């Protein structure tokens, strides 16, 4: 069942982090390979010819692309350890809905926060906070979105925490001030080794963003 497992990834990618967390939660050994996105490897292009993007999970030579698909795949193959997807059918649908919401909103809005200025940035910040507040509502009084243990929604969302400092510096605002419950949840997640070891340092991500801004000529 374990076989050969390789993850083609890029250290600041929140999408790659999802798969790292899922594999760590289940204690599954794998080979991590860092991709240079300006010079993509032949293996990456061969394994993900459609999108040519990371992360790609290669299991016994067969590629699984798209982070949410990878997390579900990991959960289904290694189903006996630390289950991430709820067993109740309706809760499963709810979890999938929120992961879809996170995918549609968080990355794009976050990108607008560091890439734009003025009114566009202000609108992005406002909508970003609104989305986090909706997620806070879904979390409610639970320890994690998954209940007492990390679940699918937690794994999908927590990687973006590594970008929060960059968003805050670029957008000149405090996420904790607006969404304290979200940050409290993040801190609980970061106490887990699987999460703490999968997320890069926030300052390092911020430096990376500053470099990207230079490259793209964004002030």
């Amino acid at each position, binding site marked *: 069942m374990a076989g050969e497992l390789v993850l083609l990834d890029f250290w600041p990618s929140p999408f790659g982090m999802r798969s790292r967390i899922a594999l760590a939660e289940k204690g599954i050994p794998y080979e991590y390979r860092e991709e240079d996105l300006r010079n993509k490897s032949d293996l990456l292009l061969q394994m993900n010819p*459609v999108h040519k993007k990371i992360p790609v999970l290669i*299991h016994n030579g*067969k590629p*699984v*692309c*798209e982070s949410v*698909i*990878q997390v*579900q*795949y990991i959960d*289904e*193959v290694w189903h006996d350890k630390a289950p991430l997807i709820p067993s109740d*059918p*309706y809760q*499963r*649908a*709810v979890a*999938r*809905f929120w992961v*879809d*919401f996170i995918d549609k909103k968080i990355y794009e809005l976050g990108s607008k926060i560091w890439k734009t200025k003025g009114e566009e940035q202000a609108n992005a910040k406002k909508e970003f906070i609104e989305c986090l507040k*909706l997620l806070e509502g879904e979390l409610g009084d639970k320890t994690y979105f998954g209940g007492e243990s990390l679940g699918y929604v937690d794994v999908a969302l927590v990687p973006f925490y590594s970008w929060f400092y960059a968003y805050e510096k670029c957008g000149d605002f405090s996420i904790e001030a607006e969404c304290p419950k979200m940050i409290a949840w993040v801190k609980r997640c970061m106490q887990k080794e699987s999460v703490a070891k999968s997320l890069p340092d926030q300052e390092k991500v911020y430096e990376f963003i500053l470099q990207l801004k230079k490259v793209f000529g964004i002030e």
Partner: protein
Amino acid sequence: MKWRTIFSSKTMGGDEEVKVFGMWASPYSRRVELALKLKGIPYEYIEEDLSNKSALLIKHNPVHQKIPVLVHNGKSIPESLVILEHIDETWRNNPILLSQDPYDRAMARFWAKFIDEKILSTTRKVSFTTGKEQEHAIEEVTEQLKLLENEVKGKAYFGGEGIGYVDIVANFLVFWFGNLQEALGINIFSQHKFPFIFEWIQKQLKIDMVDESRIPKDKHLTYIRTRLAAFKSASK
């Protein structure tokens, strides 16, 4: 808001209450109805006027306020791909839409996501842009359709032996896409360019439920043309 009750010839247990909030011209809404019909699940259909959304729709989908929404025994499930998986997991009769094999499931989910995030999204750009932007979108969607063509090459169905998850998600190619390109006066999608997808369409048409879920062509063309005209006048 119009109410319509649909019962198929194969009714399931009478204690399940299923409602679908949908819109007749939406491929996302149609795919949910198709899945329910294929599995013989009776449901109540509520047609939404998207220019005047009902309070019930907003109650059942407060986050996005969009159709389709499945309400199963009072519990709301929005997002068509989430709904399809829920239908398949809840009603385990044939056709089974997603394989039990994790790798096959991953591949099916990949292509469904590709259809929605790339093909249907680019198709929207083709519809609602003009000039160079539209030309570029047409090139883009042609390339995306080629990838899908490659995926169905040599297969009876995307799912392999019988109609499955990806076939249902790709259902928009059977009627909807052809109508759209006719209304737009373009020819991206032809048997000559996409022989394997067209072969797949012929197989789809042989399935009663697929053929019965045909969108009335004239009504659809009028609808698309009205929307395009509204877009053109709004963008002046």
